[in-house]
């Protein structure tokens, strides 16, 4: 009679410990990060020291000058062209159009070519710090061509590429930062851009298709 295994060893040899699929892992990571991001402590509000006991009268001039400085900065942002917010928008949209045009050069469109979201989504895992929603929208007229990484105005972007009746739509996705331009549409050098934010992510759809097509795309993607 041969040597017999004990039950634990026999079970470990016979029964597989299953690995969660990469798409499930990517999804869970996205949920986890979404949750963790939300539960980060909010930055201390400016008024917070007022509530603490160490606040003294001598601090008031500093606070007052801060208020004036903030107000002045805000006024500048609204009134003066070339202010910081406007220039961030200009730089971002201009770089997005550059990236879009570059992607149309032969061999640049996608790094992972697939209409299968289970192929595209895991491809991003480990390459970016975000796990973008990857969906094929063929049934809504926007077939998924694939994905790639890009670098736009200081952001590492996950890019999903879709087709719309002969037009290419690049959807750039990155983690939003405080100086992000607000949601809206832009027209730069004949290209349309549509920007929106959701769950801590900023999304930019860029195409030579009409803006109305991008809006239809946005509705399809966000459904």
């Amino acid at each position: 009679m041969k040597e017999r295994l004990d039950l634990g060893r026999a079970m470990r040899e016979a029964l597989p410990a299953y690995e969660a699929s990469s798409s499930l892992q990517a999804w869970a990571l996205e949920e986890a990060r979404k949750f963790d991001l939300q539960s980060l402590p909010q930055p201390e509000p400016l008024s917070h020291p007022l509530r603490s006991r160490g606040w003294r009268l001598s601090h008031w001039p500093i606070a007052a000058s801060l208020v004036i400085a903030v107000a002045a900065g805000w006024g500048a942002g609204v009134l003066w062209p070339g202010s910081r917010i406007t220039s961030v928008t200009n730089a971002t949209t201009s770089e997005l159009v550059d990236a879009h045009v570059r992607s149309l050069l032969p061999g640049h469109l996608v790094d992972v070519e697939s209409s299968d979201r289970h192929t595209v989504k895991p491809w991003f895992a480990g390459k970016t710090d975000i796990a973008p929603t990857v969906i094929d929208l063929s049934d809504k007229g926007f077939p998924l061509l694939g994905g790639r990484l890009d670098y736009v105005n200081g952001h590492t972007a996950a890019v999903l590429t879709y087709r719309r009746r002969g037009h290419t739509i690049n959807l750039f996705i990155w983690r939003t930062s405080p100086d992000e331009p607000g949601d809206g549409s832009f027209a730069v050098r004949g290209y349309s851009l549509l920007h929106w934010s959701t769950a801590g992510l900023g999304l930019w759809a860029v195409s030579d298709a009409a803006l109305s097509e991008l809006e239809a795309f946005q509705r399809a993607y966000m459904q």
Partner: protein
Amino acid sequence: MSHVGEQVEVGHGGSPGVGRFESVVLPHLSAGFTLAMYLTGNKADAEDAVQEAILRAVRYFSTLRDEDARAWFLTIVRRVCFTAYRTDRPQGTDMMSIDAAGPQLVDHRDQPDVAAERMQVQQRVRAAVDQLPPLLRETVVLRELQSCSYAEVAAVTEVPIGTVMSRLSRARARLAVLLNDVVDFGDVA
């Protein structure tokens, strides 16, 4: 003793840049999936169950106080499986088929007949575990396959340790009837 404020403070003691839920719960994703596979018997239900368990875990994360996140997450997975999915699966479900069973531990230095015999033993062990009633099966899977402590098994299956012990011994006794010639059951058989 736990304080309400504890959650927030502990939350940022982990590695920088990695959120608490990600670092505490996600490492147990595959353990949860393995348990769900053995409870639901197929990949689609197991994936759905784990997905639902993650959503619940997010919702109830603030109730996690002690350090045993694995037992906590497995408990959620198990509850989802028992409430949402049939756990007495029909025979011949895909998890037990050879190709779904994952890599076989066959030492290729073995002679062909030895390798074949090991495969045969592994198939018999799988079939025997598959025949166990769900409560005995999950107990033995948690203990022997996932190497949970008795206390962890008790926490996950929500019964006293004494019940875990008796379920384990009943599971072993049933398995011994089927596998005594190939598996050493010590003095139980």
